């Protein structure tokens, strides 16, 4: 199944705006939940884990699991607690590969 066929957008008339994720442009519904909008736009992995370096995507959608962590304006934020706004420049959350992770 093509990534954008994994989800059905019920509000087809919602106005769309462009945001960037990891440098790539996505057309997403304005005001939508950012995590949901990126998932539906076909983003598979929101970040790489610190230890094993594997991809993660939104899991709980209610601000508890932190798997949707991204970076906006240099601050790490939970995408599921944000809304789509025009021009958002989103990066996957930066990995920390030093400190406790270096030893494992």
């Amino acid at each position, binding site marked *: *199944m093509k990534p954008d*066929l*994994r*989800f*059905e*957008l*019920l*509000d087809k008339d*919602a106005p769309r705006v462009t945001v960037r994720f990891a440098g790539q442009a996505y057309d997403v*519904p304005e005001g*939508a*939940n950012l995590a*949901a*909008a990126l*998932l*539906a736009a076909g983003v*598979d*992995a929101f970040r790489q*884990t*610190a*230890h*094993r370096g*594997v*991809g*993660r*995507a*939104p*899991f*709980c*959608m*209610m*601000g*508890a*699991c*932190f*798997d949707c*962590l991204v970076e906006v304006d240099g*601050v*790490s934020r939970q995408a599921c*607690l944000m*809304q789509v706004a025009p021009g958002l420049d989103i990066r996957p959350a930066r990995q920390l590969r030093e400190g*406790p992770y270096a030893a*494992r």
Partner: protein
Amino acid sequence: MPRADLTIIGAGPAGMAAAAEAAGAGLNVLLLDEQPTPGGQVYRNVDEAAARRGKILGRDFTRGRALTGALNHPRITHVAQASVWSVEGTNVAYTAPDGAREVVSDHVLIATGALERAMPMPGWTLPGVMTAGAAQIMLKQSGIAVREAVLVGSGPLLYLVAVQLLRAGCPPRALVETQTRGDMRHALTHWRAALRGWRYLQRGAAMLNELRNAGVRRHVGARDLALLGSRRVEAVHFSCGGDLHELPAETVLLHHGVVPNVQATRALGLAHRWAPRQHAFVPVLDRWGLGAQPGIWGAGDGAGIGGARVAELSGRIAGLGIAHEMGALSEAERDRRAAPLLSARAVEMSIRPFLDRAFPPYAAALVPADAVTVCRCEEVSAGEIRRAAEQGCAGPNQAKAFTRAGMGRCQGRFCGLSVTGILAEMQGRDPGEIGYFRARPPLRPVTLGEVAALHDPDDPLVQAGPHG
């Protein structure tokens, strides 16, 4: 510092009902909530979603509008997108869109609801796997439906989400259910409870009927579950009735019950007890919701799982209790108003023993196999917890220090009960004796700027400081 008579954390059914009840009795209420609109998870975005998608989401959802409507009261201040990161006594610190704030109140009501019970199994951290609740939230808040979902686990929410996806034009590919027919037989020994909750049973039967008519396949009594895939989930593997199955899946929705979110009540140092039927810890509160600390109250699923209606009733009951403590209601008036609420709550709760027995958690996810990741944040496996236990690690807090399980950004919200469960299994003790992770503020990650913003330059203690 701003003050309120009552600060409520969480604008779900419990928080909203408590706010309305307390404000109605004359209290000034501050209602803090993380989401852009009130409703909690169960009534997420209800004002907009009920109008746009009421038929898909059903009447049990749209009725939440009565609660959000009641927030329109001059003595209720609802702060949206407010993230609470510290509760120390009745001082609450939070960050709202306009910055960090601290509020002091006479009473604090913790109404932070439930979390979905973690369901650790091979592959559950792969992209494409999320909770059933997450899919429902996408539907409620954003009007986005998962296509061709495979729902895995047990419980009424599994059926509800399946039916809602079906009505949204996206029939699920299959339900892979972990409860057995034997569980239902055991549950029927609670037939009196089941009869008192006949409305729920009737609704459950209607949902199953809807799924059957749509041709949605159900596999009941599934075991040996594993989610397969390399970069994202590709298939669900399980055995059922002696046969091995491998269903292709792009999106897998996990659910096997919900558990109280105890981060705030734990951080406050309230006592918690192990509730064996719920397989979870619940804070110890009196029947009004008052904890063993002055001014600290709890209501809703965070105080013990009861569902949306119980949460609403508990919120009202706590609101009356707080109004009485503040001197706004006489004892007689409080009791008169609370009597019908207390008995309605008892009736609503009476179905629980039946539901808990009919849809128990998936046993293999309570004490996962060694290779399974338990702590999603720090990527710690069940085997690493067991090795720590063999090396003499006695409790969850030591396991945290040994393995880093629970030290990640979610602060143990999703691995806490797994770590307790594994240690209980290893030591042959009751989970209640093993205990749980200690929780401390900040309850969520917070920037130094947010902490510094609380600094009051006119505070005499600050001026007396060496660098003042």
